[in-house]
């Protein structure tokens, strides 16, 4: 039976079927990749650009970036510290999830945007300490509502910057391109 199937695949109709299957899988994969690069749906349409326009620094809400591996999502108490003094918080439909969350005591469920696989040990602190700015990787947040990925966080992206930063400094290049720097 299996032989008959393979024989059929070699006939014109079979070849067309193989082509269609391949195209279907390819487009499905392409769609999947493009999907993974779109900003996911968030519980609140958080307008980064408005907050930045008010002059709030990144590290005010994400202080973990300067202190440890994860930048962190601000505690709702921090949001509420300003928002409970803003009249619009009580009326705006966009801010209702925040208000509900604070009143009911249930945390908002944010969906991570900028991610690296589990086998990468990424640490924000080293990058901030080396003088890198948030927008170098996360893009210009003053133009975004919810966070989006300006690029794919893959190894090529990391290494491109690591080699550029090292420049002619061979010792630094070795350090920054060593496997063990990120994979340990």
């Amino acid at each position, binding site marked *: 039976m299996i032989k008959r199937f*393979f024989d059929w695949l070699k006939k014109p109709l079979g070849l067309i079927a193989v082509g269609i299957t391949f195209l279907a899988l390819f487009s499905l994969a392409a769609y999947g990749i493009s999907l993974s690069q779109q900003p996911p749906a968030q519980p609140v349409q958080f307008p980064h650009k408005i907050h930045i326009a008010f002059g709030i620094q990144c590290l005010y809400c994400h202080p973990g970036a300067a202190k440890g591996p994860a930048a962190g999502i601000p505690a709702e108490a921090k949001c509420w510290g300003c928002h409970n003094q803003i009249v619009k918080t009580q009326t705006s439909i966009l801010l209702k999830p925040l208000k509900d969350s604070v009143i009911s005591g249930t*945390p908002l469920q944010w969906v991570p945007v900028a991610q690296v696989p589990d086998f990468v040990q990424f640490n924000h602190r080293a990058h901030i300490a080396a003088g890198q700015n948030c927008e170098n990787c996360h893009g210009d947040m003053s133009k975004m509502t919810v966070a989006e990925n300006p690029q794919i966080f893959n190894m090529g992206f990391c290494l491109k910057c690591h080699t550029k930063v090292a420049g002619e400094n061979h010792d630094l290049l070795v350090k920054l391109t060593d496997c063990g720097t990120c994979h340990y």
Partner: protein
Amino acid sequence: MSDKLSRRDFLKLAGVGAATTAILTGCGPASRLVKREPYLQMPEYTYNGLSTYYATTCRECAAGCGLIVRTSQGRALKTEGSANNPLNLGKTCARGQATLQGLYNPNRVRGPIKHTRGERLYDTAADPFNDEFADAKSNMDWAAATQTVADALKNNKPEEIAFLMGMAPDHLFDLVADLANATGIQAPVRFGALSMFESRATLSKASENLFGQSGLPLFDVGGAQVVFSFGANFLETWLSPVSYTRGFAGLREAQTKLRGKLVQFESRMSSTAGKADEWMPLRPGTEAMVALAIGKLACEIRGIPMPRAFSDVDPLDAASKSGIKLEMLNHLAEMFANSTGALAIPGGAALGQSNGLAVAEAVLALNAVVDNFGKPGGVFFSALAPNQTEYQRPASAKEMAEFVQKMIDGKIKVLFVHGVNPLFELPTSLQFGGATKYVPQIISFATFPDETALEADYIFPDHHGLESWGYQRVATGSVGSVLSGAQPVVSPFYDTRATADVLIAAAQLAGGKFAAALPFKDEVEFLFSKVTPLISEVDGFFSAPDINTFMAYFQQYGGWWKTTDGRSVPNSADALNRSLSGAEAEFAGEGEFFFVPFVSPTLAEAGANKPWLQELPDPTTTVMWNTWVEMNPVTAEELGLEDDDLVAITSEAGVLEVPVYRYPAIRPDTIAIPFGQGHTAYGRYAEKRGVNPTDLIGQNFNEAGDLAFAGMKVKIKKIGKKKPLSRLESIMGVYGVGLGEEK
């Protein structure tokens, strides 16, 4: 391969399938399934993804070891010993590691409960992860609970109110003692099974008889060259095992000195005997005689005029009665007398006999032969804790029997129980269970639904140790004076409340002299008041100008301790000038076997509800999750018994059915059962598992009032059934098992 599908086709199909799977799954945004919940209110000093470490004190036993607990996002994840604490210097035992499983135990009492005596609190068959089936639903609020305690204090005569407390924590004991002093209620009684099996009262009484001062002796194992331990199982459970284990490491250290030697005298090989150079399986009851004989021979070797202490003993007689040959006694005496640092330790089962006090005196007197008092590798009195003026020992078993009699006589109308589980820890023969019905009101502060809590009218659960404030005085084991401090490392998980807070609030409600006795806002304020006098002490590990700064350091380092040597030197001037008795112990009950109950180093009185500890193999037998009786293979063969055969063990106090473990490292005339299992309550992991050997122990005491737990004789009867024990070691090849040679 089948006829229809060739190997080659199979591989092709598998390849196509794998490629399709890879394409379809590899591109999916699977990580998007993750949701991130930020804190509603971020705790101070917390950063996402970074652990926060807190110093606190272990409350699994009363030793008072310091812990460093790693917490992340408000959850305690790992406990390790605190390197700062001078008692344990960064180490813990298995029970300290497993304290987390008490914190997360599914069978905790979750809120205040009005309870019908004997009623079960939870369904053991329930799913531990489903709160719908969780145990111990609270049926009252804390306001009502506090009012209940206040009424109990107010509506009874003070002398009819009693507190029965565990060995830890000390701050609560101090609070209740203050309350008792000011109001005339009965002074709190402290008890713990560990102290019962350690025979602390005997050690203290023997010190008083020999040195004219009661106290808990401290044995500097680390500085000694030759250690003779008579029954003291100091590597497993005795007094302060973590500290003594470090001492043992010092004894064995051979870089800067000669490797020290350990000789263990006991009828059953414990881990300590297993680590010893020589194990002397002497006949139970002859320890005093052997110690005196060694003393006599050692005096002869050293050319000391024979003191009165050793003059009555006949080494030949001691050799024949104990089963240790005279040549061996001579060899041991030489070893002891010629060493530059000899040390003799009395403890454990050797003291838990009718002549326990004589054993303790005889062994302590051995130290006088080499006069090691106050010298490195010698005997000291333990340093008193910073806020302590004299050694307070827990109640002996005899004092507990008197307490039970008070209950039966109706002299106790309200009984508060905290930190101890007398229904499990006291031998059944002491009748605590029967005496509860004479007490009109019992209020338990148990964190877990233990046997005693199930006999209470109310359960007002205290926090778990990792959620609690407090301090613990280090009774022994450290060079300096140590007060280990405890602080909450996580917020309380359930609707529990610190017992100190409940008592303070209830005293305020009760008003009058009760309110005046505890004029505090809460537990922390009380703690501050107890710690404040330490600010003016000069030789502390840290000092601070004011109480707030002091408490900040106290929390940071997990306590306060002195940097000076706080041990005192026993006055040994008259130690050898009195006649010591070498008479053999008397054994209660009829039977051909000596019965030695010993404390399981992992389970003991409160470890059985932690699966890690249940799963941890016993160090000598590797048995897990159960109770066994250790029996010499020779005896087993005579009785026609093999491993896992159930036997009925009968003493004058009761009968137990236990499976046999053939253990070559026990005397043929002795059997041993570990203490730790046999719970009838205490959560799903603990109950209906094994038996409790205290059921076999009768009401026999030694002269110091400690329980003569190892002073029983028992009968053994084969039942003809088997109960397989789970054990880590393979039994294949042992006693011919699996080789077709089984009998």
